[in-house]
C-alpha cells in the first residue's frame, strides 16, 4: 500500500473524469505532434522541390558592369567575349566546406553562331548536370551525342528545324537529336550542344563562360555556400538566386509560425481542461482528503497523490497523442500535399518530446488543484461529510 496505489485506484474508480483529462491532453499533444510532423514533412517536401527547381547559384566571370538575364531569372547578363573561367578551376568547388550540399555543377560555354543568316545563341552544357539543373526541360527526342545538338522550341520554329535535320555550324556538321518543349524561359531561344562540342566550335577548349550550381540548402544558408565558392574561385563572381530560395523559405517560416501559434492555443485549451477537471475532482474528494489528513497525511502526501494521478494520465496521453498525431499528419499530407508520399517515419525525439510535453502540461495544470487539495482543512472536510 503506497500513495501510488491510492492514485491508481482513484483513477480506475473515476474513469470518466480520468478519460476527460486524457482526452483533453491527447487532443493537445496529438495536434502538436500532427502539426510538427506535417510541417517537417512539408519542409522536406519543399526542400526536395527546391532541389528540383534547379540552379540556385550562378558563377560568372568577374567583370565590371555585368548585367545578366538568363533562365527567366533577372540576375544580370553576361558579355560573351569577356574573360572566361578555366574549367578545371571548378574542381575546387568539391573541396569547399559545404561540398556535400552541391547537388549538381553545370559548366556552360556560350557563343553566337550563324545559321542560315540568323544569329543564334549556342550553349555548350553538361547534359548529365542539366538533368538536375534544368528539371523543367522536356525533350522530344534524345540527348545529343557527339556532333549532335538539341533546339529550344522557339529556335526550332524560327530556324524551321526538327529532329534528324543536319546543319553546318562553323564548318562542323551537327545533327538535331531533339527539340525541347516550350519552357517559357530563354532556353526556348537557344541551341544546346555538348560542352566539348561547343568548346571546339568556339575554340574555347578548357574554358567556360559561366557555371550553374544546384545547392541543397536545407541545412546551410545559401549565403555561406556563395561565400565558400567565391573563396574557391577568386577570379569569378558568384551569385545566389536568393529570391527563389528565400521566398519559399519565408513562406514556410510563416506557415511554421502560424502552426506553432495554433499548437500553443490548443495546448493552452488542453491544460485548462486538465485544470478544471482536476479542480472538480479535488472538490469531489474533499471527504477523502479530509480522512487522509486526519490520519496523518502531510500536505506533500496529498499533492503527491494528485501529481501521481496527473503523471499517469499525462504519460498515457503523451503516448496516445503521439500516435494519433502521426496518423493525423498522414491524413493531412494525403489531403493537402498530394505530391508527398505520405510516409511519416517514427521519430523517437518527437515521441519523447510528446510525452514530456504531456507530462509538463499535466503537472503544471494540476499544480493549483493539488495545492488546493493540500490546503483543505481536515476538520472542515470531515465536518462537511
Amino acid at each position, binding site marked *: *500500500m503506497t500513495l501510488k496505489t491510492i492514485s491508481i485506484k482513484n483513477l480506475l474508480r473515476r474513469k470518466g473524469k480520468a478519460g476527460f483529462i486524457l482526452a483533453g491532453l491527447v487532443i493537445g499533444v496529438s495536434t502538436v505532434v500532427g502539426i510538427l510532423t506535417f510541417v517537417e514533412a512539408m519542409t522536406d517536401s519543399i526542400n526536395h522541390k527546391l532541389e528540383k527547381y534547379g540552379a540556385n547559384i550562378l558563377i560568372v566571370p568577374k567583370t565590371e558592369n555585368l548585367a545578366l538575364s538568363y533562365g527567366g531569372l533577372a540576375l544580370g547578363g553576361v558579355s560573351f567575349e569577356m574573360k572566361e573561367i578555366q574549367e578545371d578551376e571548378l574542381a575546387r568547388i568539391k573541396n569547399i566546406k559545404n561540398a556535400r550540399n552541391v547537388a549538381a555543377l553545370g559548366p556552360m560555354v556560350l557563343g553566337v553562331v550563324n545559321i542560315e543568316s540568323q544569329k543564334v545563341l549556342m550553349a555548350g552544357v553538361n547534359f548529365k548536370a542539366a538533368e538536375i539543373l534544368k528539371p523543367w526541360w522536356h525533350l522530344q527526342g534524345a540527348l545529343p551525342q557527339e556532333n549532335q545538338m538539341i533546339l529550344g522550341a522557339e529556335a526550332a520554329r524560327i530556324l524551321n528545324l526538327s529532329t534528324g535535320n543536319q546543319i553546318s555550324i562553323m564548318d562542323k556538321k551537327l545533327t538535331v537529336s531533339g527539340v525541347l518543349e516550350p519552357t517559357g524561359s530563354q532556353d526556348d531561344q537557344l541551341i544546346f550542344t555538348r560542352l566539348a562540342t561547343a568548346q571546339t566550335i568556339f575554340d574555347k577548349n578548357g574554358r567556360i563562360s559561366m557555371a550553374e550550381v544546384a545547392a541543397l540548402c536545407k541545412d546551410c544558408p545559401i549565403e555561406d555556400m556563395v561565400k565558400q565558392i567565391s573563396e574557391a574561385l577568386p577570379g569569378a563572381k558568384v551569385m545566389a538566386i536568393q529570391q527563389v530560395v528565400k521566398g519559399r523559405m519565408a513562406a514556410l517560416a510563416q506557415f511554421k509560425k502560424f502552426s506553432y501559434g495554433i499548437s500553443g492555443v490548443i495546448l493552452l485549451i488542453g491544460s485548462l481542461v486538465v485544470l478544471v477537471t482536476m479542480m472538480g475532482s479535488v472538490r469531489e474528494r474533499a471527504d477523502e482528503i479530509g480522512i487522509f489528513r486526519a490520519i496523518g497525511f502531510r500536505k506533500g502526501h496529498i499533492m503527491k497523490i494528485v501529481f501521481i494521478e496527473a503523471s499517469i494520465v499525462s504519460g498515457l496521453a503523451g503516448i496516445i497523442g503521439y500516435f494519433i498525431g502521426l496518423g493525423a499528419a498522414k491524413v493531412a499530407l494525403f489531403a493537402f500535399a498530394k505530391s508527398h508520399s505520405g510516409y511519416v517515419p517514427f521519430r523517437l525525439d518527437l515521441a519523447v518530446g510528446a510525452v514530456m510535453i504531456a507530462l509538463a502540461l499535466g503537472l503544471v495544470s494540476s499544480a493549483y488543484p493539488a495545492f488546493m487539495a493540500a490546503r483543505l482543512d481536515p476538520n472542515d472536510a470531515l465536518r462537511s461529510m
Partner: protein
Amino acid sequence: MVYILADNLTKTFGEGEIMVKAIDGISFQIEEGEFVAVMGESGAGKSTLLGMMGAMNAPTSGSLMVDDIDIYRLTQEQRADFRREFLGFVFQSFHLVPYLTVMENIMLPLAIIKRSKKNKQEMAEAAMNQVGLSGKAHRLPNQISGGEKERVAVARAIVNEPPVLLADEPTGNLDTKTSQDIMELLLRLNDNGMTIVMVTHSPDCAGYARRIMRLADGKLMDDNIKLRSLKRWQRNKEPFPSLNQALAAGSLPTG
C-alpha cells in the same frame, strides 16, 4: 500518569453579536490507559472537543498537551505527523475510502510510513484479526455490513498501534447487537493499554467507559462519573440499564 492535559480550552466561532462559544473554558486530565466517554446533547461541543484533541481544530485559547507535547504549538505538518504517530481516529459514519478494499482501507495509515510491504501486510492482518474481520480483506466497503465497516474503521485506527484512540459516535449507525460488539472491541483495546476517548450520545455505549465527561453548552458539566456497576454488568454479559436509568435508580456513584 497524566497523558492528556487540557487547560482552559476555549473555541469560539464568529465575532461580535453572532459569536458562539463552542467550547467554554474546559480543563481536564486523562491518564494513560483510560477509557473516557464524552457525552452531551447535540451542539454541546463534543465533536469540537474531539477535533481539538485530534490536533485538527485549534482552540481560540487555552492549551492541550498530549504526552507532554503542546500540540497547538506545532506547525500544521508537525501536527499531521503527531496524528500519524499518536492518534487513531474512528469517525462518525465510518468514513472508509469507497474505492479501496477492506485491506487497503486498513493499510491507509501505513501508505506514508517507511516499512516493507511484507511488514505492512502483517500489521494490517494483525489489526484485522483483532477486530475479527478475517476473510473480508478483498471486499469493497459497499460489500460489507455496517458493523463490519465500523470494524474496518477501528482496524484502520489501530493498525499503526497508536497510544490514543479517538472515536466519534462509533456506534451511531449500528444496531444494538453490533454496537455491543464494537464496544467490547474498544474495551479489549483499552484492556491492552490503549487510551480511548469516545464521543457518544448513547448512555449504553458510555457505560463501557471507565469515566464519563458530560458537556453542555460548551462547558464541562460533570467529570469522572463512575460506572463501575455498568462495567461489571457488561463484563458479566448481563443486560445493562441506560445511564439515565442507572442514575435515576441511584446505582451509579458520581464524582
